[in-house]
């Protein structure tokens, strides 16, 4: 590590922001990928990877991704729930990587739910 200046302290803090918003809880949006056996069989892993890639490529630091179990609607998997903090969570169904790109751009970043892929508003807790 080279000698640090006072500006460098701020830069390091900024660089670690994504990681610390996970730990400290200061995130703006949460994406839950439903990873029951049904979800995984229908392709939830690639939906998850697609979402992680979108986040990394856009270098967004205030969005977290978690998993949860089967939402009870196995026929409509893969599903995700997008929750912008302080807004109603939206559940999306029958997803693929292309739809993830759209949902990321419009809803996660833009704040506008993508109605054509949405199933319902609502969410279960993950524990």
């Amino acid at each position: 590590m080279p000698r640090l200046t006072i500006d460098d302290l701020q830069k390091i803090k900024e660089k670690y922001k994504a990681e610390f918003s996970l730990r400290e809880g200061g995130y703006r949006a949460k994406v839950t990928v439903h990873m029951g056996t049904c979800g995984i069989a229908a392709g939830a892993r690639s939906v998850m990877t697609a979402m992680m890639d979108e986040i990394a490529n856009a270098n967004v630091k205030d969005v977290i991704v978690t998993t949860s179990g089967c939402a009870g609607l196995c026929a409509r998997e893969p599903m995700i729930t997008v929750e912008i903090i302080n807004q109603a969570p939206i559940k999306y169904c029958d997803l693929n990587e292309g739809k993830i790109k759209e949902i990321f751009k419009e809803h996660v970043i833009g704040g506008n739910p993508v109605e054509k892929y949405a199933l319902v508003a609502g969410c279960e807790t993950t524990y």
Partner: protein
Amino acid sequence: MERFRANVMLCAGTGCVASGTMKVKAALQDELKKRGLENEIKIVLTGCNGYCAKGPVMSVYPDDIFYQALTVEEIPKLVEEHFLKGRPCQKLMFKEPEEKSPVPLMKDIPFFKYQVLRVLRNKGLIDPEKIEEYIARDGYQAAAKALTQMTSQEIIQVMKNSGIRGRGGAGFPTGMKWEFCSKVPSDVKYMLCNGDEGDPGAFMDRSVMEADPHAVIEGMIIGAKAIGAHNGYLYVRAEYPLAVKRLQLAIGQCYEAGLLGKNIFDSGFDFDLEIYQGAGAFVCGEETALMRSIEGKRGMPRPRPPFPAHKGLWNKPSVLNNVETLAQVPLIILNGADWYKSRRMHH
């Protein structure tokens, strides 16, 4: 920078390491790899969480799920259920002794719920072996402020106004101690930290040194500037090998980053710091005995006066502060005296 969707903060304080953290870590790594999750879930080793009796413990973020008494055997199921399928494992959660239902979230567990963390603000939240993680939590901002924007008198004034008293036992006002020493003219002075922690069964200083070593070092840098010292020793008993190891790593990182040594933050201020390992005698925690011990002599107290502020280590003006006292210094400099005063206990 790589992106992970979850951080698993696995406790690697002395207690949890003794009850199997390293084996659990290896099992976790294996299992994450098997499931193809090694790029999604990150394992971070932390300092003590104060819950050693139920170790090894870990918390999972962003979920905030707390697990205790982990065993290697439980790991495959835990990884599949929680990290893959998002169903936290109830069996490993905290339960009240008389209750059947588990308490999943760390913030709901009574032991953690009422804690307001200040000295231990970074415990369990950072990897104590990485200076970047300390910096990400505002680390070294206070040192930067003290070295580049404040005079010694200003630092001492803030400390005095805050009302902070030493945590080493005697409760001596820290600002006053620094002021006495700052007024003694001398080319050579010493800033010392007491990490001897001789009281039987005590482990608060160890917890701080293991979980957040940079906080202690930052406090020493600020103290050194206040009293005008350019050399320091961290006195830690050799029976604290993990604390010694992490402090040593932290000191090395500071030298590399220019936070110790010459001209710190281009302020013109120099400070060199090293560790002195004590052999673990209770009496060496007493300040005059501690200084003799660093001098290589038998650790015996001597009568005061002269006080260490005038004649301390090698008869030079010196200040000795406790680990916990020093770990609060950065907070006081950053947040101000009034902030600290509003939180202190009334004497």
